[in-house]
């Protein structure tokens, strides 16, 4: 009679919410950005996104097969990694580059550490950084969006001869060196808000990312701490630069909308696996990401610093966690 009875430690009920649910939420939240990228970059975007997602999924499956572990594809985290990686790639890169990036993301970024939950670094950013390090030229070649805004200068690279367009951030770098007008760049604000400018697939359209971020916040998939901290600290850093030397540094608003800042704030830095656990830790983490990004953007050699900043703070996460260790409500127990 009792064959169906089971026993287990308390509690015996649980909230109907799973890892897969969280990942699906993120995928839903990314869909506006995916849509925007397809609108602006047409088939380039579609092909790269499809390739990244597919390769990520296949790589994870292969790794599990090699390790003789149960299949972990149904938590959908590989799809999220693939999407974020694809959205942070420039539209013009060849598909094989995206494939290498995806394999690196999943295999080295995630599976060698033991799969989901064990990775120290954000896998998608690992892939992107590896590609940046390996194929710098390809990773900084930006195609013109299908709906080009004539206000932005068109440049041609000397070696490839392809018609490309500089991103607002690349121009901001030129402006810092005094080789471009800050005003020209600042005029890109609207275009950057809509996404009608050169840049990585999913990073151009601010409004699509905001929509997705809002969805995540409303669904409580992420808490507001990290996005708020990232944006706030980036804004403060950019403002300092802007106020001190407005002829060299572009407007802080453009810094927030341009490049990967929003994608990072809502989707990359909030990756729970690689972010600190406690609230205080999240504030520190977010502030660090924002500040390092702005440091690299304004002082460093790379036009974009988001992936470095995220990576750096990922590395510091264990230390932050340790620093922000929670004290029990009732004080530290004796003995």
């Amino acid at each position, binding site marked *: 009679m009792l064959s169906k009875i089971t026993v287990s430690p308390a509690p015996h009920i649980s909230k109907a919410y799973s890892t897969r649910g969280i990942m699906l939420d993120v995928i839903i939240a990314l869909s506006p950005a995916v849509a925007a990228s397809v609108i602006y970059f047409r088939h380039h975007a579609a092909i790269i996104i499809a390739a990244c997602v597919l390769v990520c999924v296949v790589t994870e499956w292969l790794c599990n097969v090699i390790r003789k572990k149960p299949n972990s594809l149904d938590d959908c985290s590989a799809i999220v990694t693939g999407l974020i990686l694809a959205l942070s790639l420039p539209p013009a890169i060849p598909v094989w580059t995206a494939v290498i990036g995806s394999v690196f993301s999943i295999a080295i970024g995630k599976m060698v550490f033991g799969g989901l939950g064990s990775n120290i670094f954000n896998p998608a950013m690992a892939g992107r950084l590896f590609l940046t390090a*390996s*194929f710098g030229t390809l990773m900084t070649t930006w195609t013109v969006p299908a709906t080009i805004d004539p206000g932005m200068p068109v440049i041609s690279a000397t070696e490839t001869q392809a018609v490309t367009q500089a991103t607002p951030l690349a121009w901001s770098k030129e402006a810092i060196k005094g080789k471009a007008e800050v005003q020209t760049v600042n005029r890109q604000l609207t275009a950057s808000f809509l996404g009608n400018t050169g840049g990585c697939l999913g990073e151009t359209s601010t409004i699509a990312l905001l929509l997705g971020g809002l969805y995540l916040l409303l669904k409580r998939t992420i808490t507001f701490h990290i996005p708020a901290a990232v944006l706030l600290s980036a804004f403060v850093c950019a403002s300092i630069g802007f106020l001190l030397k407005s002829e060299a540094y572009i407007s802080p608003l453009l810094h927030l909308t341009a490049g990967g800042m929003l994608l990072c704030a809502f989707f990359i830095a909030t990756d729970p696996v690689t972010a600190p656990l406690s609230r205080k830790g999240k504030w520190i983490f977010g502030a660090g990401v924002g500040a390092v990004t702005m440091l690299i953007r304004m002082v460093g050699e790379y036009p974009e610093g988001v992936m470095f900043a995220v990576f750096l703070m990922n590395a510091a996460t264990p230390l932050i966690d340790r620093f922000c260790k929670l004290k029990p409500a009732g004080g530290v127990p004796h003995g």
Partner: protein
Amino acid sequence: MANNDGKTLSPGNVLLAGLWRENPVLRLLLGMCPTLAVTAAVKPALTMGCSVIFVLLCSNIVVSLMRNLLKPHLRILMFTLTIATFVTIADLFLKAFQPDMSEALGPYIPLIIVNCIIICRAEACASKNGLFISMIDAFGMGVGFTLTLCVLASIREVLATGMIFERPVLPVAGDSGGWFVPWAAMGMPIGAFVTLGLLLAGVNLITRRGKG
């Protein structure tokens, strides 16, 4: 070392120990700094390996010869002195006859002084064994080290530049229409760390298979 394991201390055994069973890089994790630093290309890696073989051989010979005269407190000092001398000789030699390599390797040649392999072999083998065994041991260890370096360097050089020994092996994309786009990251620190990490993992896998 195998001398107390009941195994016979045959020269072949000692040689093989250095090559695989106690390979300094892959099994003992010694001398990691040069392993990572000079393996962007095969040529400097080979040069480095040869320098290590030379220093290892010389220091082992010297230590083995005076192993019975060593006093406990001054032993390490004695080793250090010997090694530093031979490293300087190697450095001078390279500067004189291989100036390009000397420049490419830079301070990593003098850093052989603090390469754990050398002092480790002096301590573990040369100070306990006769001249012949010490020499064989030094040779085995040195060759093991060099081979590992070369393997690592060839992987990295091919992927980073499409070349081995600065000779093209993969058609590099460009004007001549090759298909291979070099992975610059392999020439950077990330390439060094990840390749060595995966190499070690592979070795672990093989040894475990062997045991199981």
